[in-house]
């Protein structure tokens, strides 16, 4: 026990503390799991910002600029060697460890965090195996399925398809099933798909759309049709109602009377 305790880093201890203190009933468990989830997200985001900052500092240094001009690969690598990448795998492992102390939706949420953010194929495989074994009915599966793209490579085409089929068979949640249909359709209709696959893919997408109801997934599926029917030159642009970065509501139609460049962009 002593040795075990020593191995737990302060960070893990902080993460596990709420669990050790004992959250007994379901609602309490869920909010404790959510708190851990938020903490992990905040930590990853902090590490990511620190990485970006440090990286910027290095790439704007004179030594780096010179090495780049000289195409001195070795020097560039050396200069970047002090950079510490965000430890997403380490955090994912913490999420897995914490998940083991929860049941039901709380566990699924943390497992999902690990699979989505860990950037690690083995973690994804382990998580999916655990989900298949005991969590197929959980509503928290929806968040994981929303990020279904991260699952396909680690699981391979067949593994991913089997998982999605199981969701369609066993989940009581329409939205979970909708996502499963959607990702199946995406997998079928990738580059090089033949007419058969395209037709089957369209069928699966239609099922996904029906099950998605008012959820934005339905909008996503209808996207190409929306472009074809509403976003052609000569048509009045559909309104956009939303919020700006500071949370202030506004609409595209507020700008009638002005020439408008509408630009889907980001810094990333």
């Amino acid at each position: 026990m002593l040795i075990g305790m020593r191995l737990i880093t302060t960070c893990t201890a902080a993460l596990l503390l709420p669990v050790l203190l004992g959250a007994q009933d379901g609602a309490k468990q869920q909010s404790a799991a959510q708190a851990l989830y938020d903490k992990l997200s905040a930590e990853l985001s902090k590490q990511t910002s620190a990485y970006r900052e440090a990286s910027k500092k290095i790439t704007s240094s004179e030594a780096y600029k010179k090495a780049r001009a000289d195409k001195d690969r070795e020097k560039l690598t050396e200069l970047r060697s002090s950079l510490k990448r965000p430890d997403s795998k380490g955090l994912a492992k913490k999420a897995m460890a914490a998940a083991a102390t929860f049941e039901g939706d709380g566990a699924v949420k943390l497992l999902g965090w690990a699979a989505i953010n860990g950037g690690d194929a083995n973690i994804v495989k382990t998580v999916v195996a655990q989900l298949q074994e005991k969590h197929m009915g959980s509503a928290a599966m929806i968040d994981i399925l929303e990020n279904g793209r991260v699952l396909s490579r680690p699981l391979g085409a067949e593994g991913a398809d089997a998982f999605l089929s199981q969701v369609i068979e066993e989940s009581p949640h329409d939205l979970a099933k909708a996502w499963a249909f959607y990702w199946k359709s995406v997998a079928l209709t990738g580059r090089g798909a033949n007419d058969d696959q395209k037709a089957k893919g369209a069928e699966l997408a239609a099922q996904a759309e029906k099950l998605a109801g008012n959820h934005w997934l339905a909008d996503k599926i209808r996207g190409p049709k929306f472009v074809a029917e509403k976003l052609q030159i000569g048509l009045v642009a559909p309104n956009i109602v939303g919020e700006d970065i500071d949370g202030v509501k506004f609409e595209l139609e507020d700008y009638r009377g002005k020439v408008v460049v509408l630009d889907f962009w980001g810094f990333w």
Partner: protein
Amino acid sequence: MIPHERSLVEQMKDKPFALIGINSDKDKAYFHTKAKEMGVTWRSFWNGPRGTGGPISSKWGVRGWPTIYVLDHKGVIRFKGVRGEKMTEAVEQLLGEMEDGK
């Protein structure tokens, strides 16, 4: 792209023109830092925490970033996918039409 758009906004600042973004940065703090650094002054809808998978771009079927539409003063889509100088030309043409009372 940002330097060009920044200069377009600057050049057209006294004209009936607006550049409206749909911004897909997940992290608002990161957005603010970068916006300051790059001198981004135009207003953007936020596409939400899912970034490029957000609600506005999902509905609009956006597949590539950036995606550009240019609308005239009546809200009609007149150009798609124009970047750099072509964007400036499109805006100038539409402002010209407006002055001619079309």
